């Protein structure tokens, strides 16, 4: 480029707008060309305050650590002992979040069951009912009860080890869904009582109840149908976590699943994913506060999800008061989703490994989020299960390593007082002091 024009006047440096960035401009061009909002999978991609902004202090003289390879650090957790005669006993506090058959292929669901079972934890169905494959390969299976009720039936309900009433998910609090028709294969269509190939619109509210007073009656019905045996979870999006947790407990939930905005989804409007909901970091303390105010902390379990990736995230979630976490996106990556080995195929789809999120289009090169028989054949459920088991075990070891360093013989003995924050935002959201200080914004009695 010339540094000056033909009259010798220097050009200014071309300047990109901070408002109209290249990303924004591409969004506008896409909307103008297609006349439909951008639908995608996955959770929020924008940077939000997260567990990365917290650090554990560890032990030195004032605190004593546990010896890494000799002194035991327990990881088990019991979920749903309050009202259910058969609570769920997990070896590790990391569960697999609900992902539907339909969004995922049958073999991918099987792999989740295999990996979770081998690691001693539970997996969860999704919007689309329970498949024999996942029931068969999951030693502990949580059955989601969703607004759409696709495939809902009392026989599967009674086969479940727990029931999760889904009120919302972190990617889209208050939203229903619209899954485009490409992925509605014969089998998916049959399970959902829908014609093949049409767009599937999911309602945002349950068809036969609204609000906590009705929810209490719905929980009663589900318990009567299943003989008061299995725990009933209530899953809510991170929106108003104090009140939603309070109301779920008052309605009779055995466990509350709380999903932050980084939590994934099969398909929803990008604008919803990026602009509605609260970061996972910001929802834990209000929910725990609600449980404490009700005298129900550790009696009704809190399962936190939304962008959990490592043993450090697990330990931080538990230190802030969660009883367990759930992973979705991380589990898919462990299975092989977005693997760079498919880079040339991602390029053909106009994207790159790590950024692929058009799961609803059914063309996943990794063969996980698809119903295409040729693509599905690329994915081996046994190998996928092994990889997931390894990943779950590594996360558990990481969390134990941190807990031991903080002097804890059980993961659930981690406390907020073991943490400090790196930023003011994280300090305020997690209600732990800014590193090196005794203070966090909003600390009672400090006047700020």
């Amino acid at each position, binding site marked *: 480029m010339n540094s000056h024009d033909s009259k010798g006047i220097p050009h200014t440096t071309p300047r990109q707008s901070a408002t109209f960035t290249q990303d924004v401009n591409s969004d506008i061009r896409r909307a103008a060309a297609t006349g439909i909002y951008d639908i995608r999978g996955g959770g929020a991609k924008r940077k939000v305050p997260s567990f990365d902004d917290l650090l554990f202090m560890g032990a030195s003289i004032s605190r004593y650590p546990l010896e890494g390879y000799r002194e035991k650090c327990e990881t088990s957790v019991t979920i749903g002992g309050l009202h259910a005669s058969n609570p769920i006993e997990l070896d590790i506090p990391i569960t697999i979040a609900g992902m539907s058959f339909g969004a995922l292929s049958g073999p991918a669901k099987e792999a989740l069951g295999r990996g979770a079972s081998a690691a001693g934890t539970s997996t969860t169905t999704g919007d689309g009912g329970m498949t024999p494959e996942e029931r068969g390969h999951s030693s502990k299976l949580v059955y989601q009860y969703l607004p759409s009720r696709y495939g809902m039936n009392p026989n599967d309900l009674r086969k479940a080890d727990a029931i999760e009433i889904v009120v919302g998910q972190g990617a889209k609090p208050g939203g229903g869904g619209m899954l485009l028709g490409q992925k509605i294969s014969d089998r998916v269509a049959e399970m959902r009582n829908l014609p093949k190939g049409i767009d599937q619109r999911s309602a945002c509210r349950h068809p036969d109840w609204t*609000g906590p007073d009705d929810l209490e009656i719905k929980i009663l019905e589900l318990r009567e149908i299943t003989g008061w045996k299995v725990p009933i979870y209530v899953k809510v999006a991170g929106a108003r976590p104090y009140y939603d947790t309070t109301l779920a407990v008052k309605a009779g939930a055995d466990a509350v699943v709380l999903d932050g905005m980084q939590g994934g989804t099969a398909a929803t409007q990008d604008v919803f994913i990026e602009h509605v909901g609260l970061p996972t970091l910001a929802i834990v303390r209000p929910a725990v506060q609600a449980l404490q105010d009700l005298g129900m902390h550790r009696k009704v379990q809190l399962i936190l999800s939304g962008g959990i990736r490592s043993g450090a995230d697990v330990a931080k979630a538990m230190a802030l008061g969660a009883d367990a976490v759930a992973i979705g996106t991380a589990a898919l990556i462990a299975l092989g989703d977005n693997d760079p080995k498919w880079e040339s195929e991602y390029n053909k789809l106009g994207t790159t490994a790590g950024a692929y999120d058009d799961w609803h289009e059914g063309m996943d090169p990794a063969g996980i989020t698809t119903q295409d028989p040729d693509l599905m054949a690329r994915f081996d459920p046994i190998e996928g299960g092994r990889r997931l088991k390894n990943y779950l075990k590594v996360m558990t070891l990481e969390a134990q390593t941190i807990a031991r360093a903080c002097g804890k013989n059980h993961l659930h003995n981690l406390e907020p007082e073991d943490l400090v924050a790196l930023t003011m935002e994280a300090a305020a959201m997690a209600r732990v002091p800014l590193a090196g200080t005794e203070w966090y914004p909003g600390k009672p009695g400090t006047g700020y």
Partner: protein
Amino acid sequence: MCGIVGLFLKDKSLEPQLGNMLTDMLITMTDRGPDSAGIAIYGDDSDNSMKFTVQSDTPESDFETLAKDLGDALGQTVQVEVNSTHAVLIVPAKEADSIRATLASIRPNVRVMSRGQTLEIYKEVGLPKDVAARFGLSGMHGTHGIGHTRMATESAVTTMGAHPFNTGDDQCLVHNGSLSNHNSLRRKLRREGIHIETENDTEVGAAYLTWKMREGASLGEALESALDDLDGFFTFVVGTKDGFGVVRDPIACKPAVMAETDQYVAFGSEYRALVNLPGIEDARVWEPEPATVYFWSHDSAPTTKEKAA
């Protein structure tokens, strides 16, 4: 999120039983609202005087010499009937407008629950059966009454957050549902000079009706315009000196069942609340339509709006 019950008597011979019947209905709705309970009862007409139901968290010290202190401040005779944490003040009608200010100066911790010629409101935190027993609700008599059991959603579990809310002389309102535009509406109504005590969404609904009626609307008209201006989910039951009304939002998700016989009109959030009423087996039982105002009145010449039912 709550349970609502209401009973409007047509048969005068049932009036001594009103409290008893309403109490049974109220307790049946405990599951829908275990946090607090309240009842509005339309009882004796106080000719040329006005009744204020007031509440105090320290009733012993606040109420002991209240009749004398208030009487001295007003230069009038004032009657005070204490009932647990509540007291009913009967004051000459012409003094009614100065009562709030006078009370605020001589008894700053005493809060006004209701004002009207026949209306009394009793409400407290706690299980409905305990609240009913505390005030002896089952022994009360009257022409009609409304009760509410509350499962708090986003506002505090306090006496002031309990329903019914008194909206204007002899008016009261209870609500099941949750309003989604109450914050902005509260700011607007406060700018209009309407007194709003709490951050509760229902109080905004009540205050909205007060505002509309201050601007000249009838209760029926105020309820009609509420259908446009209040966003969210609601089943409202309202009481006036002579009447009893019901309105549900256009989506009408929150439950409502009504029963009518020659003796009464009854409202319940669930049919369970109505099962012990006399003659319920032969009553006309139906669900109120969405976005429709229903109204019954003891007044022999109700307005067209009031006859909407």
